[in-house]
């Protein structure tokens, strides 16, 4: 234990004599947190907020100030205020309500600055940036109303089992997108850290708190004064400076967008290695199995001189993507697609999906008609024109029934598959089922074949493009996730198939002449049953 290790939390050296090998400062600090025992795990208040005396009001305390919202719960708090989940009944949506520390308002000129900053933040309209809906002041409390992101922040994601390098490499380009966009708009984030990088349930990255650091830490002369963390200070608005660029820590007035690129480098390093790049740190590829070329990207982002870093967030993205794209196909497979890309794929699959849906419905109707033909014929006293010859030409009535049952079954099954596949394709939900539907569509096995063939070919051309698969969720990842409620189409479809089979068996046993009616009846019962089961499922998943 002669070598000194570095505390992953505060970044200071851990002395060799430290008890249990833990960082003594962080251990001592842990003693302070007793008052915040009830705070959200993973977003526990840091010492800075405790010291600055900011106590987050409870949802009940806050409610009178914000009659336009139903305050649901406190999501987290820190040096920069507290965030609540709130519902906006008028629009029937959830929002995130951020309250700034009250003492900030005592600062002369704050109101003006607040308005100016909030207006520029509201202009940041990007898929990877948490949108600012509104801002203002209510009874002395300055607040932002922001997009509510249902998911976890990157810190929590790292905590609950960490990230694999491919996952990290899928996140970085999205952060770059958001940063590039805001930098183009002239907004520097200044506080990029895992806590501010949110990941929603669909794996999309959303960056929160753009520009807040500047708003809360700006000095009279306009220069950034993000004061480093001290135990006795009274004005901290920042947490620990672990992710700050060197020029930011020095309080230099020349902080520009390249500070964000440095912070991105720290986050990147941490995502890959689980550690912070402090002191004489090792290249990431020495710690985890990744392409050595990524070392260069990380290290260049972490250059202490801004001039030697990447000059644009886009450059980082380009480098990462070229390395990932060229080196390992597994990376590109695992790469969750951006929202833009998904929207594009969805629009390309729209027409084939609708076509398959129509063909599927035609197949289902055809199956029903064929099965009910004998009944019609008996009612009307004979087979309809077209089929009469077909039936008479072929030996007996029983054989004809058998053939029609086969045709009807094929029609029915392909109909179900096409409808299911079309829905999955349209929602970009299941790559496998979408692919199967496209293949079924081009097989001449059902009466809707003339309709389904062109759409099937169309769908196959789109679906088989190598990048399109990325727009669908990873099947492996899906199976590891919690059981999701089964889709309505598969439930109803399955129940219908089951009903039809039961009807066929019953018909064979009871009255072979009426086998078609039994099967149709079975399908109808299956349809009803499926609807009931689906409604039940929805009820459960709501809990």
């Amino acid at each position: 234990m002669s070598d000194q290790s570095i505390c992953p939390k505060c970044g200071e050296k851990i002395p060799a004599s430290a008890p249990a090998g833990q960082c003594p400062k962080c251990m001592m600090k842990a003693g302070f947190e007793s008052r915040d025992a009830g705070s959200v795990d993973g977003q526990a208040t840091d010492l800075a907020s405790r010291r600055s005396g900011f106590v987050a009001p409870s949802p009940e305390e806050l409610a009178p100030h914000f009659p336009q919202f139903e305050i649901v719960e406190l999501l987290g708090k820190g040096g920069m205020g507290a965030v609540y989940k709130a519902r906006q009944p008028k629009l029937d949506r959830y929002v995130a309500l951020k309250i700034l520390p009250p003492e900030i308002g005592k600062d002369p000129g704050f109101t003006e600055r607040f308005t100016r900053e909030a207006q520029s933040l509201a202009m940041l309209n990007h898929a990877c940036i948490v949108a600012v809906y509104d801002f203002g002041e209510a009874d002395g409390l300055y607040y932002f109303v922001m997009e509510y992101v249902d998911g976890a922040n990157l810190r929590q994601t790292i905590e609950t089992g960490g990230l694999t390098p491919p996952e990290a490499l899928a996140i970085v380009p999205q952060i770059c997108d958001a940063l590039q966009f805001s930098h183009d708009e002239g907004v520097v984030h200044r506080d990029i850290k895992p806590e501010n990088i949110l990941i929603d349930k669909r794996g999309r990255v959303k960056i929160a708190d753009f520009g807040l650091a500047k708003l809360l830490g700006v000095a009279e002369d306009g220069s950034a004064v993000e004061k480093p963390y001290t135990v006795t200070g009274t004005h901290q608005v920042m947490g620990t400076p672990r992710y700050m660029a060197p020029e930011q820590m020095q309080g230099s007035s020349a902080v520009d967008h390249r500070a964000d690129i440095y912070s991105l480098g720290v986050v990147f390093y941490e995502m890959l290695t689980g550690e912070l790049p402090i002191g004489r740190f090792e290249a990431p590829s020495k710690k985890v199995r990744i392409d050595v070329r990524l070392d260069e990207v990380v290290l260049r982002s972490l250059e202490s001189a801004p001039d030697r870093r990447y000059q644009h967030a886009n450059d980082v993205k380009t480098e990462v993507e070229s390395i990932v794209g060229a080196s390992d196909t597994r990376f590109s497979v695992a790469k969750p697609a951006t929202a833009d890309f998904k929207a594009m794929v969805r629009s390309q699959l729209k027409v084939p999906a609708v076509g398959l849906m129509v063909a599927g419905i035609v197949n289902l109707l055809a199956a029903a008609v064929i099965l009910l033909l004998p009944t019609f014929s008996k009612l009307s006293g004979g087979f309809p024109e077209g089929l009469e010859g077909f039936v008479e030409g072929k030996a007996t009535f029983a054989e004809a029934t058998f053939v029609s049952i086969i045709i009807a079954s094929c029609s029915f099954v392909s109909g179900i598959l096409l409808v299911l596949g079309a829905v999955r394709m349209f929602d970009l939900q299941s790559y496998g089922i979408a692919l199967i539907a496209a293949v079924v569509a081009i097989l001449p096995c059902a009466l809707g074949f003339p309709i389904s063939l062109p759409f099937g070919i169309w769908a196959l051309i789109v679906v088989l493009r190598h990048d399109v698969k990325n727009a669908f969720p990873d099947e492996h990842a899906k199976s590891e996730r919690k059981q999701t409620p089964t889709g309505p189409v598969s439930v109803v479809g399955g129940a219908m198939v089951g009903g039809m089979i039961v009807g066929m068996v019953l018909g064979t046993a009871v009255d072979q002449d009426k086998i078609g009616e039994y099967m149709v009846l079975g399908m109808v019962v299956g349809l009803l049953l499926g609807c009931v089961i689906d409604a039940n499922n929805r009820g459960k998943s709501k809990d």
Partner: protein
Amino acid sequence: MPKNESHREPIARERHFATTHWSIVVAAGDASREGAQDALSQLCEAYWYPLYAYVRRRGHSAPDAQDLTQAFFARLLEKQSLRVAKRERGKFRSFLLASLDHFLANEYNRARAQKRGGDRVHLSLDVAAGESRVNLEPAHDLTPERLYERQWALTLLELVICRMEAEYQEAGKARQFELFKDVLGGGRERLRYVEIAAELDMSVENARQGAHRMRKRYRALLREEVARTVVDPSDVDEELANLFEALGN
């Protein structure tokens, strides 16, 4: 780090005196009260190392420092030091240092008849032969007082850790302690809950809960330990802040 065990031993043994509080000693204010005397000696036992380090840093050789520390405790406990221990004595930490300073000045004068001035005593080079832990301290840039505070903070943390470990061991959860102890410092975000849960054969959620409980328990013990050394329980936060600063660079 086997050498370090030597000074951990008495600390570990000390844990059953956890109820001893400096406030009791101060409140008793009377050395003839046997309980207070015991309480004081137990506290001294727990916190001997910072005093020893302080004496060493003042330039005494290892054997001298050992003798001086021993003698100091003997004198402190024999003499009626407690008779003058009042509320103004403040924190146990400050009381001990003040008493030690007083003691050293007297002993020192007697032994060498030296006075303050240019003849600053240098660290003797037989440091390497002395207490192993002293060698591990990057003490060169610290004043003896700062070193004392720093050592005090470290000792206190170690007492807490030992108590904690003993608790987990008694509950048959020694392995759990090993796996979770990173939450006590800054390592919470680095805990691989998935792997830990697999090893302990529990769900990930339970593992997270376990880590959370451990942190909570640790906090309680830490505050309790600090409370032992201050006069008023409301001083705990202030003392924590002082010790936190003492650990700074």
